[in-house]
């Protein structure tokens, strides 16, 4: 039992509270966190209070970001979710070496984004690109997706939290919440960068073998595609909310599958179909984005094939159920199969089938995020190396200062020795001898030589005087 009740309290309080909240992202954050709290209370075996506190902290971060009255509070919210993520990653499965490493990478890359984000935030509108860079890092868009992939080390509910409304979404959401900040941004460039980034992330999703990693990649792909929709705010909002709810649900589902080895055909099929209907049916105002989305769909299909692998006999049932739900859904929710260019559910059905049939073991596997991760880690290591060098430098500076002060002390000691010499030897010697000389001068019996010298001197002076007078 332990402190499990804390999580139940969070759930019971969060659900009604969520309905009272008006801001859509915050509402989704509250609801998703509440649901995840309930899930965690059964998923985790210990550390319930830790989860409860950090979930609350994440929720508080989103609240501050959405309702912060000054730039400081907005940034506080932005930052708080990263801190909570660090705690959840590092402590979620207990303190392990890998968890510490992942937490370090996650936190530092987010802080790197903060440097740009802060410059944009406090640059009084002169540098909107900073928001974009900071947001891209927060959202884990390619090429910054490596931290998202590595953060999959965390337990499933934590991943669900980070990938829904509580961390990565903020990287795109700032455009919707504070549209004024995005005013100077180049729309076409964003669109193109968005779909290219989405496409590469989708390929990454195909290349990955573990379900959670696939999901991480699809998150990167979806958020990039959502970003490419700018400046269509309504569309972005809808997609972002769908993404939040569904990504959370998918991670929770993966968590179940990881615990049990499989999930039942009905629940699984409904989840998969709903994912494609709501989460993806609608992106793609450019061809590139549509292609990216198609590849993402294939990756998800492949992922579910892996998950359901424990019971091969379920495959046909899966396919039938998914196809039926997609077909029905596309008519009821999406204005018919061909109603809009944005609808891709037919594709999705095909993609899932393709995902099942294609012999993926022979497909290439792209892990270009590894290169980026290594580059980032290399940057970190280089800084550490540089720091050792500068530390050496500091040591030498300190030594030089010491040397100067010791040289001064040495000089002072020599002066002191000179002083001592003068006091002990020099001054007495001089005093003694000058006294003797004086006595010698004034004494009556002086040596002959001296008197003669005096006489001669006197004579020379006298003669000189006469000569001088004579010459003038």
């Amino acid at each position, binding site marked *: 039992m332990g402190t499990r009740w804390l999580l139940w309290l969070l759930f019971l309080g969060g659900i009604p509270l969520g309905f009272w909240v008006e801001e859509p992202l915050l509402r989704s954050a509250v609801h998703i966190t509440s649901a995840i709290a309930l899930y965690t209370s059964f998923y985790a075996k210990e550390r319930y209070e830790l989860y409860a506190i950090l979930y609350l902290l994440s929720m508080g*971060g989103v609240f501050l970001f959405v309702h912060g009255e000054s730039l400081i509070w907005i940034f506080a919210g932005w930052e*708080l979710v990263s801190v909570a993520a660090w705690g959840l990653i590092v402590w979620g499965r207990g*303190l392990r070496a890998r968890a510490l490493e992942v937490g370090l990478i996650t936190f*530092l890359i987010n802080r*790197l984004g*903060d440097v740009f984000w802060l*410059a944009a935030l406090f640059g009084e509108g002169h540098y909107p690109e900073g928001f974009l860079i900071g947001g891209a890092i927060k959202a884990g868009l390619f090429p910054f997706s490596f931290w998202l992939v590595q953060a999959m080390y965390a337990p499933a509910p934590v991943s669900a939290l980070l990938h829904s409304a509580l961390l990565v979404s903020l990287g795109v959401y700032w455009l919707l919440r504070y549209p004024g900040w995005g005013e100077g941004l180049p729309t076409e460039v964003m669109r193109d960068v968005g779909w290219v980034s989405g496409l590469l992330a989708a390929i990454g999703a195909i290349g990955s073998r573990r379900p959670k990693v696939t999901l991480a990649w699809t998150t990167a792909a979806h958020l990039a595609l959502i970003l490419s929709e700018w400046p269509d705010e309504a569309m972005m909002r809808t997609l972002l909310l769908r993404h939040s709810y569904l990504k959370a649900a998918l991670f929770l589902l993966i968590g179940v599958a990881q615990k049990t080895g499989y999930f039942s055909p009905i629940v699984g099929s409904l989840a998969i179909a709903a994912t494609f209907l709501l989460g993806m049916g609608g992106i793609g105002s450019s061809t590139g984005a549509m292609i990216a989305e198609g590849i993402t769909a294939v990756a998800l299909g492949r992922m579910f094939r892996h998950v359901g692998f424990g019971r091969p006999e379920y495959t046909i049932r899966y396919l039938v159920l998914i196809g039926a739900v997609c077909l029905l859904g596309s008519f009821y929710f999406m204005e018919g199969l061909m109603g809009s260019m944005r609808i891709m559910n037919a594709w999705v059905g095909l993609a899932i089938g393709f995902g099942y049939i294609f012999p993926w073991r022979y497909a290439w596997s792209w892990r270009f995020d590894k290169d980026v991760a290594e580059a980032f880690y290399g940057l970190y290591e280089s*800084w*550490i190396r540089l720091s050792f060098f500068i530390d050496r430098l500091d040591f030498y500076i*300190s030594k030089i200062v010491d040397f100067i002060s010791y040289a001064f002390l040495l000089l002072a000691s020599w002066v002191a020795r000179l002083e001592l010499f003068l006091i002990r030897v020099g001054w007495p010697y001089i005093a003694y001898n000058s006294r003797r000389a004086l006595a010698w001068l004034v004494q009556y019996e002086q040596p002959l030589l001296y008197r003669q010298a005096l006489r001669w001197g006197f004579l020379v002076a006298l003669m000189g005087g006469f000569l001088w007078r004579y010459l003038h």
Partner: protein
Amino acid sequence: MEVFALNALWLGPVVAGGVSLFLSRRMLLGWLVLHGFIQVLLWIYLYEEGEGLGPVWSFLWFSFGSKPFFYAIGLHPVNVWLLLLTIVVGHAALFYAFSDTPRIRSFFALVFILLGFVQGVFLARDVLLFFIFYEASLVPAFLLIYGWGGAFRRAAAVKFAIFTLGGSVLLMIGILWGYVGRVSGVWEEWRAMPLPAGAWLLMTVGLAVKLPLIPLHSWLGEAHVEADTPVSMLLASLLLKLGGFGLLSWVWMDGKEWAFFLRIWGGVSLLYAAAVATAQTDLKRVIAFTSIGHMALVAIGAGSGSMIGIQGAYHQLFTHGIVSAGLFAWIGLVEKQMGGRSLSFLRGIFAGRSRWQLPAVLLFFAAMGVPGTNLFVSELLVIWGVGVGAGWFWAMLPALSLLLTGVYFLRVYRELAQPMGAVQGVDSGIFFSPREAVVWFLIGWVLVGGVYPQPWLELLSYVGP
């Protein structure tokens, strides 16, 4: 009463120092509590009296030629919280020290006297009085480093004294130069017109020794490491503030003209300190260099060229004072328990000991400027101020502090939390002591200041040119 309270704020500790020479260890504890209580009451009285804006008291002390020198002390929005910082950290450090510090009477006396002079520096409203207190504080600080601490404390103390005295010479010449064209050095007149460039430079360099900025920082690493833990707390949280306070209050008043210079100096200092802190293997040295980095932010704030940045720098003086004292207190705790403070020796001490790591995590995150801690507010204000005063590109410089502090604190945490194998003990329970109470007391200040910074920001909004 106001006059009494103002004077008692700095004379009280000096007298208390004299009295504590004659008390036993147990009586000293009572004396400490009584004194702290009275000081807090006086502070509250003065704060309520002028709502943080007053009162001021001055009389003509002496005059030399046509220049009058005033004994002028008073409260001002910029020193109100620093006075409280002195009371809080000073008494916390003494409480931390009282149980097992050798030669306790003289220790208490020196710390009390140091506190009195530090209060004097913050209270002074005449530049000469400021300088007198500034110089006077050197003596007890020197003796405290010299008398208590590690094996190399004497060399460290001498180095500290040489550096600070060198800085004081420059500061004194700068102050005398600043008198040219002014009748007196009282606060209003001193700040009414800009200083001559030479005076500005001399005073800045003189105070940068105490702040410290590189390459004048070399005394700090040794003094903080070699001193006893309570003395390190006082050095980091009060002595460095004298430099920052002087820079912000008595040197920095005319905004933009020289801002560029200070910004670059502070920025270089920040990067340098972050790098050196990353390479350290001694926990205390890490914190010592963190202090340099954080005080570099004060210099950057002073050079931000905007009022927000200067307010942030003032705020940073208070917040860093609390955080660094907390960090040093925590390290003292670990050193006491484990018998060492080298990172390689302490590797893995957090595994399985949540009691140990909770204060550490809170303090590390506070030093990293994470929301909910007081340092976050001041760092953001500094970054904001630089963005407003100098543009977004410059704002990246103090913002880098967030990243680089993160690098070395997470690195340290990773070392301390690294799982080391099978025997990762249970909480021993020995860790709890009055010293741990001091750590938690300071953490309380960190969190209160982070969650509700309004009382600080309200007063700082009065800071004007």
